[in-house]
């Protein structure tokens, strides 16, 4: 059941693309640093060679650009994986963390953690992540209750999405309200609403990387189970998978994934929708292939979106969530339309 067993050219190609995009991205920014210099700075920092790169350049690459690039890759991988999982569990190709309101739930959790004072539980990044996880979990079960469980995917497509969107709105309204009451923390909270990699620190990168890696590995190991679950609860039952138990297991792990990403980078929508959907064209729906490809594809997409966010209106920065919404919104509408026409099974 391990995922990399079958040939998976899409995943391999996208994985190879990741380091290329990392260094292309490292060359983008206010200070003029070339692609080659960026590569050299990293090699020198690791201690593999000595190229005499100036200290400020090394600092910019290692402490400013690289953390945010890596965080965008981690966030992309996490959101795309979570999207693929939600789609399988809900048997609905329009499900994803943002549209289901789960990102907003995580964001509300994070906001509360900031307001009641960070660090009282597990250190500042840790407690924000923990609260974000609690928020996302609460949301997913709330949306589940509203839409009437995961029994029939197509049947309650409307309920699921409407429930998710409504819950998302309510949570964002609560966040706005909390923001008003805590104007001193407004700036930090605003960042959660829009999604951005601006204030990335290595601490955030490492926390997110750990959670995303563990969750992604767990999900990939269970890819066959996810295939079975995607057939619907009756068939899952007869093939030896308890649909409720397995569904809850996958939801918890992907909520953890979403929470880790949201608490490091805020709400970034649609990555979980676009990436698995596009990649199914190449890998088919088999999650043993789709999941690794989605993780790699999500990393690539979000790094590219971050390049756009930094360079389109430089020196001003566009929140990366705005970029993904510009691509994802129309994409979602097209899918909705195709679905209505019955083009999608």
């Amino acid at each position: 059941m391990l995922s990399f067993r079958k040939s998976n050219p899409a995943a391999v190609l996208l994985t190879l693309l990741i380091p290329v995009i990392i260094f292309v991205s490292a060359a983008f920014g206010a200070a003029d640093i070339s692609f080659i210099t960026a590569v050299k700075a990293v090699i020198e920092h690791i201690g593999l060679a000595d190229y005499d790169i100036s200290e400020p350049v090394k600092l910019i690459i290692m402490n400013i650009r690289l953390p945010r690039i890596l965080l965008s890759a981690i966030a992309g991988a996490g959101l795309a994986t979570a999207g693929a999982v939600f789609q399988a569990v809900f048997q609905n190709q329009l499900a994803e963390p943002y549209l289901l309101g789960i990102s907003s739930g995580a964001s509300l959790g994070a906001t509360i953690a900031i307001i009641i004072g960070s660090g009282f539980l597990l250190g500042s990044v840790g407690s924000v992540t923990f609260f974000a996880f609690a928020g996302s979990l609460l949301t997913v079960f709330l949306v589940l209750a509203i839409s009437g469980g995961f029994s029939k995917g197509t049947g309650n497509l409307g309920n699921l999405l409407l429930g998710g969107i409504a819950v998302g709105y309510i949570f964002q309204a609560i966040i706005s309200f909390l923001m008003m009451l805590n104007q001193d923390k407004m700036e930090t909270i605003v960042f959660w609403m829009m999604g951005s990699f601006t204030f990335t620190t290595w601490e955030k990168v490492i926390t997110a990387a750990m959670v995303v890696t563990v969750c992604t590995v767990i999900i990939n190991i269970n890819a066959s189970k996810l295939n079975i679950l995607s057939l619907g609860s009756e068939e899952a039952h007869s093939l030896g998978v308890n649909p409720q138990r397995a569904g809850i297991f996958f939801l918890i792990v992907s909520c953890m994934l979403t929470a880790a990403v949201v608490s490091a980078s805020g709400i970034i929508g649609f990555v979980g929708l676009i990436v698995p959907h596009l990649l199914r064209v190449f890998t088919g729906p088999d999650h043993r292939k789709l999941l690794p490809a989605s993780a790699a594809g999500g990393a690539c997409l979000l790094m590219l979106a971050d390049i756009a966010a930094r360079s389109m209106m430089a020196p001003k920065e566009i929140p990366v969530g705005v970029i993904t919404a510009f691509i994802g919104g129309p994409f979602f509408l097209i899918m909705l339309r195709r679905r209505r026409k019955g083009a999608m099974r």
Partner: protein
Amino acid sequence: MIHLKNAEFRYGQGFHLKPVSIRIKKATFTVLTGPNGSGKSTLFSLINGIVKPTSGSVTLDGVEVSTLNDRERARFMGMVPQRNAINFDYTVDELVAMGRYPYQKLFSGESENDRKIIDEVIERLDLEYYRNRRIGSLSGGEYQRVLLARVLVQQTDVLLLDEPGNHLDLKHQTMLLNLLSEEVKGGKTVVAVLHDLNQAIHFADYGLLLDDGNCIASGLPREFLTKEMIKNVFDVDMKEYRSAAGGLMFGLAEL
């Protein structure tokens, strides 16, 4: 083999399947029939372990079905569900291969033996040509064959089929039922929900007629299915015919 002892099921205040006691023997073809809403699907779900009886018991070789763990049960009992649209367009090979899931461990994946079984069944059901086709492009008959292939790959003693003839033309229905009869001869126990009474008479060794949550007749279908019984349960006038070989058939009385 399968033994229901006063098995009863209630959906809250709604549907009530009154206590049923039946014994389904090994290597037999059992048919559940009755009007819509009579309790066939509920009974089917009880046997399959999807729902637990509110009272009474459902046992498989003496073991309570609801106490089996999910994979254990799936190695004893396989099911062909009613055609439901799957939202993910797997290939025929991928879908059939999922029948081996109950035998696989977390890190083992598909073994050579699994592959051998899958290939044999695909060949037997004449699906070689479709192997890499996506299920979304199959006709109803082809898809039904794929589901049947999956349940055979599951290598269970018991095969449960929920209205397997739905969406199939006459030729494919007959092919399917013949194939199931072969499986019964090979030692499998088949339980199917069927609407066609003539098919029930022709293929089944044992049958159950349900009406409004009550099991009103059981035994050999050609014995308990009479035109009086049909009129009583389905509210349709039927006429009895006898084939040259003496087999019983029903046709609409007005014809």
